[in-house]
């Protein structure tokens, strides 16, 4: 059977002859014999595509997936939003999928223009003038935002609201091992960041807050801005792009950098990746912007055209002095998001956010009526909220899964105990529940009933 290698034996002969070689082995004569692999790789023999597909069916059968097996009430940074067939059909066009980074602009206007449109949409969502062509995921956007702000202020001290997604904080902490940035977490009380509790000390370069935060609570961005101002620090807002459809734009409220996770914009749950790091900033910071940036220009004939620009920031030119090491990013997800946002339009995006809020509040009311399930915070929320359950959160979720529900995300699965976001000891009993616009009233009703039973 075939693989993907076109060469026939006869052709290989001819080519070897042309090279004056007597066998394929000789191509590797430069490799010291002692290093050459004797027995071949420790892998099985190859299979055919349909055999491999059958293996994947077997893997798939051992997962409980959303839609097929479970009704999804989980969020925590990954949401079950509507992705219409038209978005899939366009985003999977092979010209987008199998293209490389647009190095030859003359034959890459398709991707370049799509990115330009994506940048515009992200900038408008953020309320800031510039957005890049994407980063890996929300966490990497956070890391790059911190790096940008530290670079701009020359101060390595970072105040991170405990409302920022625990995984993102963890990634920032990991990468601070290299940069040496000093990350300090500011606690939440009743779901909202308490800037007055921020640790004192050295001057702070960066203040980071999430809107909404990982417990679903809406933060007071003005307060965050004010706190940043007391330090002369830059403000980074980790904003959810669906919520941004109805919330005041962080840029208008004073954010210098707005980041986010773009999975909600047309990308499947995908077991966590590939997702989409969003990144927007003020005009002042554009020369520190990480990643690729597409700009508009004209060609020699005066026709409008697009090209990657300000490349001097990038690693392939600036090398060790680059603002970031990111090269391959998540362009296909960015193109997808541009298509999804065009499909939604202004009213569609607002409608999605509104319906999420309606569903979440409708569920929350029912859960509150059960009394045993207590909200973690009283702050306003949109799509997501956290509750305390009598039983251990993990137990509750396991029981709900048996009833066909992915009932939320246990706080203990995201963060290890007392990280400042929850009351001490609350973590093991906290579930973060999300309701998207795809959840029907019947699903919510059934879930509330099941939750009531499972929570005991």
């Amino acid at each position: 059977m075939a693989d993907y290698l076109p060469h026939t034996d006869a052709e290989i002969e001819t080519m070897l002859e042309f090279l004056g070689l007597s066998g394929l082995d000789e191509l590797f004569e430069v490799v010291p014999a002692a290093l050459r692999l004797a027995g071949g790789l420790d892998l099985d023999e190859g299979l055919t595509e349909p055999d491999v597909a059958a293996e994947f069916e077997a893997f798939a059968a051992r997962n409980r997936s959303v839609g097929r097996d479970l009704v999804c009430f989980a969020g925590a940074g990954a949401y079950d939003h509507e992705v219409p067939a038209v978005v899939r059909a366009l985003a999977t066009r092979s010209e987008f999928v199998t293209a490389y980074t647009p190095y030859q602009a003359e034959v890459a206007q398709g991707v370049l223009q799509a990115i330009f449109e994506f940048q515009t949409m992200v900038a408008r969502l953020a309320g800031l003038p510039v957005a890049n062509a994407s980063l890996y995921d929300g966490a990497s956007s956070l890391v790059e935002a911190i790096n940008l702000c530290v670079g701009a202020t020359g101060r390595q001290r970072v105040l991170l609201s405990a409302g920022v997604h625990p995984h993102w904080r963890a990634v920032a902490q990991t990468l601070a091992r290299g940069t040496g940035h000093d990350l300090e977490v500011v606690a939440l009380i009743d779901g909202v960041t308490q800037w007055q509790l921020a640790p004192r000390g050295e001057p702070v370069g960066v203040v980071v807050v999430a809107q909404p935060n990982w417990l679903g609570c809406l933060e007071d961005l003005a307060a965050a801005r004010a706190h940043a101002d007391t330090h002369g620090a830059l403000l980074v807002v980790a904003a959810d792009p669906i919520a941004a459809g109805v919330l005041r734009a962080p840029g208008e409220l004073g954010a210098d950098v707005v980041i986010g996770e773009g999975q909600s914009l047309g990308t499947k749950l995908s077991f966590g990746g590939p997702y989409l790091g969003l990144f927007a900033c003020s005009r002042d910071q554009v020369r520190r912007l990480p990643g690729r940036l597409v700009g508009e220009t004209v060609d020699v004939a005066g026709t409008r055209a697009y090209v990657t620009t300000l490349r001097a920031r990038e690693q392939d030119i600036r090398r060790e002095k680059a603002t970031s090491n990111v090269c391959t990013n998540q362009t296909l997800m960015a193109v997808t998001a541009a298509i999804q946002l065009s499909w939604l339009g202004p009213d569609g995006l607002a409608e999605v956010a509104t319906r999420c809020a309606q569903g979440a509040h409708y569920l929350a009311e029912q859960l509150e009526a059960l009394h045993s399930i207590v909200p973690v915070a009283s702050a306003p929320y949109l799509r997501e909220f956290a509750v305390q359950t009598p039983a251990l959160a993990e137990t509750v979720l396991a029981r709900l899964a048996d009833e066909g529900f992915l009932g939320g995300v246990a706080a203990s699965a995201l963060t290890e105990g007392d990280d400042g976001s929850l009351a001490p000891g609350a973590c093991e009993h906290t579930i973060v529940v999300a309701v998207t616009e795809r959840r029907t009233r019947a699903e919510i009703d059934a879930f509330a009933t099941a939750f009531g039973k499972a929570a005991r």
Partner: protein
Amino acid sequence: MSAAPGGRASSAPLLGRDAEPTVFELSVTGRSAAQLRTTGVPATLLERLVSASYLRREPVALPEVSERDLVGHFTRLSHRQFSVDLGMYPLGSCTMKYNPKAFDEIAAMPGIADVHPATPAPLTQGWLALLCEIERELCAVTGMHAATLQPAAGAAGELTGLLLMRAFHAANGETRTKVLIPDSAHGTNPASVTLGGYEVVTIPSDARGLVDVDALRAALDRDVAGIMLTNPNTLGLFEEEIDRIAAAVHEVGGLLYYDGANLNAILGVVRPGDMGFDIVHLNLHKTFATPHGGGGPGAGPVAVSERLAEFLPGPAPCRTADNQFEWRMPPRSIGRVHSWHGNALVLARAHAYLRVHGRDGLARVAERAVLNANWLRVRLHDSYPAAFDRPCMHEVVLTAAELKRTTGVRALDVAKRLLEEGFHAPTVYFPLVVDEALMVEPTETESPQTLAALADALERIARGATDDPDAAHEAPRSTPVRRLDEARAARHLVATEDDRDPVEPRG
């Protein structure tokens, strides 16, 4: 009715050469495409759920288009985009091979793609098993002991590897400050070194295009945390003295980092682990044929030798004693490097690729890739000599220096002319150490016929450069747009629709 017409296809290369309006220019107030589920959830006014002080007064200024115009626009944009599926993409260092379609379907299976990343492990045993398999396979291919699948791309893998290096030395009570990098290295390497908190020390190439081992030795001391190498290097040449290099670096207590972007050349022939490397990242979007998506997503897993395994990022998928799977944090983990578990669907595709090829198939991949590159090298010898005239591995760096000297036609011109000939251009002006570099990587999925056609085209361009150098300077003439004013793009930044100059450009 001043919006642009969505049904006019004159920007499609099939018909014309106009600019495609942006989706914002197609927008008409009140038009829409979205259709949402009917849910029956009470439609309470948002203002009654959330205080108006949080809410925006105007919706976000997104485009308002019909589904028909949406489809027309993005379909036309797709026709303005070169891709592997249209033709050969001999971009050196990028390994643009054919991406099997079967894996698109595999990665879209509901039981694979529709799994929430926070689903408890007992309900995602299939995914955990799959990830463990991939880790095992990548270790087998690289000759390493354990791997993390979290890094989302090669550069993320590099940085992860450098943090592992740092953690390793720290655990030994050492703070080392420098990392060595050859001058031919990819730009991500030095950038990652900086972000890893190290200082870059550049090691020159010698006359053979290989690491200058003497210079290397001279740079080695106990401040050196390690060295980043690719082998074959970015000149497409195998570092023959890799064992001496490894010994020297190890001698001073340094670690060897392998930039796996060039792994395609040596699959099944020699393993980084056997060459003495301690840390290896792999670019699944290169070697393992996961499509590049116009710039991403990729995946950059990092495999390490036994002594580094305990530092790997986590949580990592693990097999338990009773053949179940769970997430575990390695004992001295540097921590998490991705929001979730890495670019899972990219990993899944790579696994499918590895399964189809298997042990023998992977060796065939390397053989054909190297055969193709050498054939081109020899065939093009007279018109575009290789920068270093010796057998290459999976790619070859040619130089147009002589062409430029005699005709004024530069590597860039050759690249643009090649577009007219029906091929994507090679990588140009990289690696930086070669003058007028044309870095050609044919990959194993291109046929001898295609190689010959590419060679014919390149020779035609070289011959034409003498007769009619202007043709080369003016190329490409048959593409939807021609050479761009790149300076203007940078000088007068228009990075969003809102930056647009009110003066309308032509087209």
